[in-house]
């Protein structure tokens, strides 16, 4: 990765996991959720797909690639369904991923990913098929123009909820944005008899 690249515009090779309905229990199994920090979860990302019970490696793609070269995960339909655990995007990012691509990405997972700067890119079937057809390819993702460029030159324009996009581009966070609304929140509470007793 060159120094000119940012989280919002970068090129990377892809990693393809074509299974549909990859749930957050697969991305990070529940028994690893007893942590109290966000750090270090990359080593258990896809734990049960990566390792045998004795800790040895399984024959699984994440054991064969260089995470610094493969920063885009392409997965089957309905990626990230299941639990609301934000540990799933934390684990993927800690492993090295900067974006996930699927034909459909589950609601809470998408929201959790955007809040952490893991870019969820929803593509149409034709684009997905092109990604699968050449699983070694390098793609470019640009959040400013919402463009996903494939190796064959195809450009797919994806959609990102505009507020989340602005937060990522400007490095603003939603907590700060909400805090600026405290006067309106207090006024709402007063008008609706929701003040603290």
């Amino acid at each position, binding site marked *: 990765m060159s120094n000119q690249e940012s989280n919002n515009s970068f090129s990377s090779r892809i990693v393809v996991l074509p*299974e*549909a*309905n990859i*749930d957050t*229990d*697969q991305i990070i*199994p*529940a*028994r690893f*959720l*007893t*942590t*109290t*920090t*966000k750090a270090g979860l990359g080593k258990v990302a896809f734990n*049960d797909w990566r390792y045998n*019970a004795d800790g040895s490696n399984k024959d699984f793609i994440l054991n064969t690639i260089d995470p610094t070269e493969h920063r885009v995960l392409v997965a089957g*339909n*309905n990626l990230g*369904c*299941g*639990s*609301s*655990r*934000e540990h799933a995007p934390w684990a993927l990012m800690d492993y090295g991923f900067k974006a996930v691509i699927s034909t*459909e990405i*589950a*609601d*809470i997972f998408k*929201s*959790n990913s955007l*809040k*952490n700067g893991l870019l969820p890119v929803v593509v149409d079937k034709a684009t997905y098929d092109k990604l699968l057809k050449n699983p070694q390819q390098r793609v470019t993702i640009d959040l400013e123009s919402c463009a996903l460029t494939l190796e064959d030159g195809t450009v797919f324009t994806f959609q990102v*909820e*505009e*507020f989340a996009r*602005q937060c990522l581009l400007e490095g603003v966070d*939603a*907590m700060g*944005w*909400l*805090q600026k*609304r*405290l006067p*309106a*929140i207090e006024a*709402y*509470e007063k008008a*609706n008899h*929701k003040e*603290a*007793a």
Partner: protein
Amino acid sequence: MPKSLFEKVWDAHVVEPEGATSPAVLYIDLHLVHEVTSPQAFSELDARGLKVRRPDRTFATLDHSIPTLRPDAQGNRPYVTKQAEIQVHTLEQNAAKNGVRLFGYDAENRGVVHVIGPEMGLTQPGYTVVCGDSHTSTHGAFGCIAFGIGTSEVGHVLATQCLAQRKPKTMRITVDGKLQPGVTGKDVALTVIATLGFSGGTGYALEYAGPVIEALDMEGRMTVCNLSIEAGARCGMIAPDAKTVEWLRGREYVPHGTAFDEAAKSWLALASDEGAQFDKEIRIDGSAIEPMATWGTSPDQGAAIVRGVPVADNEDQQRALKYMGFTGGEARSAEKVDVVFIGSCTNGRMADLRAAAAIFKGRKVAEGVRALVVPGSEWVRIEAEKEGLDKIFTEAGAEWRLPGCSMCIAMNGDFVLPGQLAVSTSNRNFEGRQGPGSRTVLASPATAAASAIAGHVADPRQFMALETA
């Protein structure tokens, strides 16, 4: 303009409406917190020098990582790991520091977060309810907009009592007819998910309606709403009616006396207006629903038990059958059960335990089957013991535990061994959900109990004295 239940509750909570480039600021009435998805949110508050803004609207409990076995003579709890113990203590410290009420170990009200909210009347019709847990949709049974959030959003609510949200689309699911004897809310829920598909509800708030939903008790309605997320939906809701009002009357946190009657009047007015518009409408014939069991590795892969395992017609289904070790076309009775789990936020309430006990009574768990019954809360445990249900379970050969999430999420030391087949009343049958290599069949409490007795996946009706219509 006629409004739907969802629109009425949503509109009443908009602090700032959404615009083209900004989401709505949505006010949250009730924030439920547990030990697993909150530590990093509290740390974020600390890092910013913030405190919990509305501790009076924030309630915490211990459920996911806590052991369900009793402490030893010295009072030591059998935590699965030191890290799990630290996680529990972290919540205790965060709650104390911020003045948040925690239903701790010895509290009579401790339990699974989605069981205790309604039980105490913390959950009230017309509320917005959130929790860092996807099954927060449970509370929609009371006419709440209730949904699961991630840890960042837990932090947002702790700090501001609000969330930045885009309004979802709405879908009404009308379940017509009348349920056959022996068919429960869980079977309705599994049918709805099988109908919608795993992501059929993505982007939608669901409203369940129709005579079958109206006839369900509150526990059954909670089970239906609980599983909304398994079809990808943001939340599920049911309009409050007289049953809702009576269920809530007298509970700790609801208003009392004339204030309750006034509140009840406003709750009943939440029902969708005649002519309310939905982005999508679905109808299901409730009379045709039979006891259900999943056969695959996602909650939408379910079918009526009497019909056997379907023949796979795509790669995902083939993969699921292969993982489960099932064969398309086989009878469910061919599936030998190793473990039965009755409990969870889906089916750990009194009505669920009573339904299971009715099957267990006077019978024995089949040899080689381990059956675990875990009450959803301390209140459920105490009430069940008053009714003698614990005796029925233990005499049948099942284990009776302390409340918690237990084998549903399998992060507290209760889990299914690799390769074992579990019939579970919980909400997810994902690969390894109940332990690495575990295989899970989702079903109702009656079906789980029947499967424990039979030693294989079984239709509960064979153990029921059913009245013929």
